């Protein structure tokens, strides 16, 4: 009996998420939570808008502590993210899972979703809304890291900072990329809890 046959026979399903996807997913989840929580505390030291984040949900206790968290977790986020992106391209998973994205399919699936007719029976296949969200959050992740680098090193990486419109503008880009990721998180976690087998697939692989 071939390995694949064994895989298909147990539980009757094939692997949906290979081990590298699951590992990078959960490492990213942890790093993102630390980055977002500490980032909120950093934001509070000099808010861009007329509000601050409740300190009870921010990480690090004070600016110095938050910065230590932020600049520790950044290595985990960036290295893990690079591994994920590299494997995503090299293995062809991004192409297979996320492409093509056509406006027509997105509009049709959004309509289906808001009328609660959107099927998600086959976990191995993403509908157009999922494709847009997953591709979008990967893009937001790239933007949040690049704009973060621009804020961290506006002299050594001044070309990058200039690309974002300068130091001050890069702070806004960094904030909105964070907001996009948090927005994604809310939808993503809600849906994962509504469809528990999708959560199981991200833990056990199938």
């Amino acid at each position, binding site marked *: 009996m071939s390995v694949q046959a064994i895989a298909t026979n147990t539980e009757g399903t094939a692997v949906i998420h290979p081990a590298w996807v699951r590992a990078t997913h959960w490492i990213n989840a942890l790093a993102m939570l630390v980055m977002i929580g500490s980032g909120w505390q950093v934001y509070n030291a000099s808010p861009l808008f007329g509000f601050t984040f409740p*300190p009870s949900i921010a990480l690090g*206790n004070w600016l110095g*502590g938050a*910065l230590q968290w932020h600049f520790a977790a950044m290595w985990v986020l960036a290295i893990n993210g690079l591994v994920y992106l590299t494997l995503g391209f090299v293995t062809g998973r991004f192409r297979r899972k996320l492409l093509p994205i056509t406006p027509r399919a997105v509009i049709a699936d959004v309509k289906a979703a808001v009328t609660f007719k959107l099927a998600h029976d086959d976990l191995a296949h993403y509908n157009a809304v999922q494709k847009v969200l997953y591709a979008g959050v990967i893009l937001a992740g790239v933007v949040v890291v690049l704009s973060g680098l621009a804020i961290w*090193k506006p002299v050594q990486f001044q070309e990058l900072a200039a690309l974002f419109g300068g130091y001050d503008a890069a702070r806004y880009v960094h904030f909105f990329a964070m907001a996009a990721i948090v927005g994604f998180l809310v939808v993503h976690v809600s849906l994962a809890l509504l469809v528990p087998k999708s959560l199981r697939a991200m833990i056990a692989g199938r």
Partner: protein
Amino acid sequence: MRIRKLIPGVDPELLVKDAAKLMPDPARRNFLRGAAGLGALTLLTGCDIIDGDTAEGVLRKISSFNDGAQAALFSRSKLAPTYPESAITRPFPFNAYYSEDEAPVVDPATYRFEISGLVDNKKPWTLDELHALPEVSQITRHVCVEGWSAIGSWQGASLGDFLKRIGADTRAKYVFFRCAEGYSNTIDMATALHPQTQMTFKYDNKLLPRAYGFPMKIRMPTKLGYKNPKYVVAMEVTNTDRGGYWENQGYNWFGGL
């Protein structure tokens, strides 16, 4: 364990008030025992009480690792962007851990810039002697660790040229600055020798006002604001890291931009 003196001339109550502004409610300290939040506590107790494998210890180690990463990223020749006069932020903000009326008052007549450490000529410098040094000027962005930034105009003498003039051993690792109110900074020699690192005597072509650090500020557009000391009264060229006011409380040591 490091011994830290309370800052002479600064009202301890004010200091506590300031620390309290930055520090969270003690009740909120449960989550991971407050990373470097304890830093402010050590300021008040006068010694570092944390070492070992606590979350704070690990975070401090990573922060030290980040010092090395930033030193590797630092380019001696890469200049901070400069701006036209029209870009200057007016009024340029006053910023310190005390209020503006608490800023030190230094008497220019008795002021002496003290030099010590790995230097051939340790003669103290009067303000007139310092003002006679060849003038350099810059309009650069001051970036605060809090996130805000402001563009200012600073004039003074090149620190790198001054170090060579007094026969400093530029192979030494650090330059340490002590300030009138007890503030301090240790910086890396590479940054001390950076072409834009300036012993600042003027702001916007006028004698440095008290609020901005009279009689001398060290302006480094390649470092965060807290690494730009004001009211500087002494300098030491050394191979020993003497830390700094905020660095000892948990802000990153290198503080590079």
